[in-house]
């Protein structure tokens, strides 16, 4: 659910960012192009204007020069003939030219004959001077000179106003371009993008794939077509994906995910307060055996058969799911009472139990059902799977092949487990965990060789709780390592006290949970703790189960080797109940094997058990492993073990697990061991190896 939410959120954010991004694309385009456009336009027009300005300057120069020449021609005769008023009037005429600011005519003596000043001279005054040549048939003389001062200021003003106009035109043109770009970008880019975005948004809202309404035939039209095609494809894929996500591919039944949704639907659709929901948690018994015997294909076929039978056994309003493996769930949304629910569950069992033909062999399927019944409006409706699981657990452990109904007792157990699970942190913090010790006796001389550290939980409400009940909870809450360190520390402290009580030969055995063997820091932690308490690691014995070896063979054997290098000895616990693999005995660096008490309890009555223990003993002897028998409660059992050749024993016959103080007190009353044996065996390992 969380994951799905995340998945929903991300595209959401992306979706909201998209329109902003598209706007900024247009803006970025405008920002990228407009200044360039403006600059180029201004530079171009300025360039054109400047060149035009220079050409106008040149034209003005040329024009004034022409004026000077023509005036010189006109003036020559009156000047030469000293008709100075004519000279002045001719000179006056040129003052109509606005560019000319002043003009003067000088005769051949350099005296100013005529001088006109039109306007005060501004900046940029240029002057042109031309000789006035007079000639008639007889003579050709220079009669004088004409000088014209003229100003570029009108050109400057014109150029300035033109530049200003060009600037304005340029800015207006740029503005128009910007508007045109904006409009066209909105029409050609923004519109199609918005249409696609809208399609994406709608698709996101209800998970269906909507096409984008873009009719353009340009690239965006093609993009939209491609997008729509993709949407179409995605739509199918999403449907399939959705179905796959909520259905078991093998049987086509809804899966675990659907279950959660189904419960929500049930809760919201609760018709009346009286309506009861029957929740059947079905687990096939020994499905592993079928897989192992007939192969996985047959196992799959088997599961398909089961699912078909379940489907056949239920009504239309009922709901069947496969949670995975051999677990099925059937929910009947309305039952009148618990008895009806139980009857329904039994019918399901009956339906399942019809024989199935696999590889020409008839197989009798068997299943257990945990049944939980709740009102539809029960706020704990979402806990139905867990509740039914409690019942199922009970059924499988107590009466496989039956229907177990969740009752008050089961629920109490469940609540207790939950309470304990929640109390674990407090348990650590408040030192509620206690380490008790049970002695392991050398059967030959009755001396205490070792103490097994056994964890207890002194719960303020529930009293002292055994490890069988709370260790699974510790493991599930991820506190294995913490608890192991806790025990280790206590064991080291106990070793100190043993040494102080002059019993340094007594070693302490610690149980390692499977997860610890995968923890590479364990060996280091043990060494540090031993150093801290000043005790030898060789005084420690580490008990492991076969199960911990199976899951991670490489890592486990590596950890074991490290531990042995520290000097600790390794004991295989509960041997005989699990895999009892001879290969394990040979492959792993083991020192000791603990024979499970199941083999001891019937001894000496059971000759079979006795034989088994004998085989184990001869095997251990062959492999150089030390043996210890657990659960020795009677003297004849101890005697039998001794006869078989089991060196050590542990059980109520000798001592029940007790807090250390009680153990130390008890030890006081024990006879001292024979020292010479100990003197000959400073290290346990060589002794056992011998």
């Amino acid at each position, binding site marked *: 659910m969380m994951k799905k939410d995340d998945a929903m959120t991300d595209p959401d954010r992306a979706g909201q960012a998209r329109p902003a991004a598209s706007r900024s694309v247009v803006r970025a385009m405008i920002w990228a192009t407009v200044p360039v456009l403006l600059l180029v336009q201004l530079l171009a027009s300025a360039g054109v204007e400047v060149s035009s300005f220079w050409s106008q300057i040149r034209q003005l120069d040329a024009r004034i020069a022409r004026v000077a020449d023509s005036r010189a021609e006109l003036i020559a005769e009156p000047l030469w*003939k000293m008709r*100075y*008023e004519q000279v002045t009037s001719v000179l006056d005429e040129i003052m109509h030219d606005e560019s000319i600011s002043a003009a003067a005519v000088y005769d051949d003596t350099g005296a100013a004959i005529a001088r006109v000043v039109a306007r005060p001279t501004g900046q940029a005054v240029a002057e042109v001077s031309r000789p006035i040549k007079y000639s008639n048939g007889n003579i050709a003389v220079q009669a004088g000179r004409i000088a014209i001062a003229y100003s570029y200021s009108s050109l400057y003003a014109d150029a300035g106003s033109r530049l200003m106009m060009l600037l304005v035109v340029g800015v207006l043109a740029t503005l128009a371009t910007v508007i045109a770009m904006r409009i066209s970008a909105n029409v050609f880019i923004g519109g199609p993008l918005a249409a696609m975005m809208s399609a994406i948004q709608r698709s996101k809202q209800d998970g269906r794939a909507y096409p984008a309404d873009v009719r353009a035939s340009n690239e965006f039209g093609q993009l939209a077509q491609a997008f729509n095609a993709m949407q179409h494809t995605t739509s199918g894929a999403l449907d399939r994906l959705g179905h796959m996500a909520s259905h078991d591919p093998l049987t086509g039944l809804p899966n675990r995910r659907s279950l959660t949704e189904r419960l929500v639907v049930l809760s919201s659709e609760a018709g009346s307060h009286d309506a009861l929901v029957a929740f059947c948690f079905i687990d096939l018994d020994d499905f592993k055996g079928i897989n192992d015997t007939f192969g996985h294909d047959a196992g799959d076929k088997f599961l398909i058969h089961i699912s078909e039978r379940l489907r056949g056994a239920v009504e239309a309003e009922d709901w069947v799911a496969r949670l995975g493996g051999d677990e099925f769930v059937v929910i009947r949304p309305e039952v009148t009472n618990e008895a009806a629910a139980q009857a329904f569950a039994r019918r399901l069992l009956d339906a399942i139990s019809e024989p199935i033909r696999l590889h020409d062999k008839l197989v009798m399927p068997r299943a257990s059902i945990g049944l939980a019944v709740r009102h539809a409006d029960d706020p704990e409706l979402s806990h139905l799977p867990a509740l039914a699981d409690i019942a199922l657990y009970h059924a499988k452990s107590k009466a496989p092949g039956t229907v177990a109904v969740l009752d008050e007792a089961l629920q109490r157990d469940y609540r207790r487990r939950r309470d304990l699970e929640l109390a674990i942190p407090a348990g650590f913090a408040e030192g509620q965990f206690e380490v008790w010790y049970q002695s392991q006796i050398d059967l030959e001389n009755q001396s205490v060789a070792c103490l097994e550290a056994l964890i207890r939980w002194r719960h303020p409400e529930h009293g002292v709780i055994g490890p069988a009940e709370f260790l699974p909870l510790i493991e599930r809450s991820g506190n294995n390592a913490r608890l192991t360190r806790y025990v280790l520390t206590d064991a080291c402290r106990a070793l100190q006290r043993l040494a102080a009580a002059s019993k340094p030969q007594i070693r302490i055995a610690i149980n390692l949970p499977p997860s610890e063997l995968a923890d590479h820091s364990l060996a280091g932690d043990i060494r540090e703790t031993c150093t801290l308490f000043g005790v030898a690691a060789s005084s420690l014995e580490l008990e492991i189960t076969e199960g911990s070896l199976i899951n991670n063979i490489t890592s486990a054997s590596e950890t074991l080797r490290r531990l042995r290098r520290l000097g600790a000895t390794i004991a295989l616990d509960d041997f005989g109940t699990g895999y009892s693999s001879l290969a394990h005995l040979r492959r792993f660096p083991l020192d000791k094997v603990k024979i499970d008490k199941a083999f001891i309890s019937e001894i000496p009555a059971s000759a079979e058990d006795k034989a088994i223990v004998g085989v184990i003993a001869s095997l251990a002897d062959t492999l150089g492993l030390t043996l210890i028998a657990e659960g020795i409660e009677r003297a004849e059992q101890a005697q039998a073990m001794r006869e078989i050749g089991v060196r050590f024993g542990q059980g109520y016959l000798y001592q029940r697990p007790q807090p250390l103080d009680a153990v130390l007190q008890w030890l006081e009353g024990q006879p001292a061991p024979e020292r010479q044996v100990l003197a000959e065996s400073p290290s346990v390992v060589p002794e056992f190896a011998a």
Partner: protein
Amino acid sequence: MRFLRILLAVSLACGVLAPAGGAVAAEGKPLNIVFVNPGKTGEVFWDMVSQTMQAAGRKLNAKVEVLTSERNYRTMQELGLAVLARAEKPDFLILSNEESAAVPIVEAAEIAGVKTLLLSNTLIGEDAARLGPPREKLKTWLGDITTDLTTAGARMANALIGAARARKWQSSDGRIHILGIGGDEITPASIARNAGLDLAVAAAPDVVVDRMLFANWTQSEAEHVTANYLNWASRKGIRPAGIWAGNDPMALGALNALAAAGLAPGRDIEVVGLNWSEDALREIKVGRLLLTDGGHFLLGGWSIVLLRDYADGCDFAAASPHVEVKTSAVTRNNLVSVSALIRTRAFERIDFARFRAKAGACGRYDFSIDALISSLSPANGAGE
């Protein structure tokens, strides 16, 4: 209106002068002559032309009718053509080809069969080429009587040069600097005078005409350009030695400019003019003007002499249809005898009959100032 006024003036002149003319006239049949005067009433030269013409008519049994154009060439053409359109056509039509305005009249006269004489200004340029010499294409165009103004211009220049040399009025460059003031640049009468100046200066390497300025024949413009010249000359470091003026008014303007510049004409610089005008004669008398050339207003009288001889069978074309009359300079030396004549305009004192060609020498005339002076009857003999 103007035309009526002209007619009135003519009839008055005829009415007053006819008895005297009739009394003097002695030779040949009486002649009927019309003169279309191009000038303006009150314009001294052309008035004097008309007056000498009429004085000669009275002496030579010719009735001279003067029509005045008032300086309007269109009027001149209208007057000429109107004369030709008369029922009783005159024996001779005297025209002056100023601005070539007389050409249409001359051509019309050919058609009308009226004999024409061009006075002072004859055909020039294209007209001359087109119409050819007198009495060829135009049978009735008898010829022309003009003044040799080139000689006049040269004589004036030489008088200036002589005076300057004598008084060592050379400038620092060792040359004698002269200002020329012409009337205009286009009329033949002006061009001829100016050419005279050029001829004289060309022959004198120590003389330079600084400028040939043109003053439209008027005193004020001459004064103006002279002032400009004097300024220029002083800036240029030139000592002006003489001013050659194309007519008397311009000479008088130059005198004014000199006075304004603080120069004393006759002492610091010499000025010459042309026209024998009264004012000029006065300035000669007080020594401010060196001379005034001219006397060509007598062309009026001389033209009547020619036509009288022609009518009486002594054709001036025997020598040439182009009669060119030399002008004469009035200086302080000969001032006295001429000035009274000019001042009083008592042209009756001139015995025009004395100037007629002698038999066998048709076309040969002596119109010199000496001949003139000797022909004059005593001043008190006139009706003054």
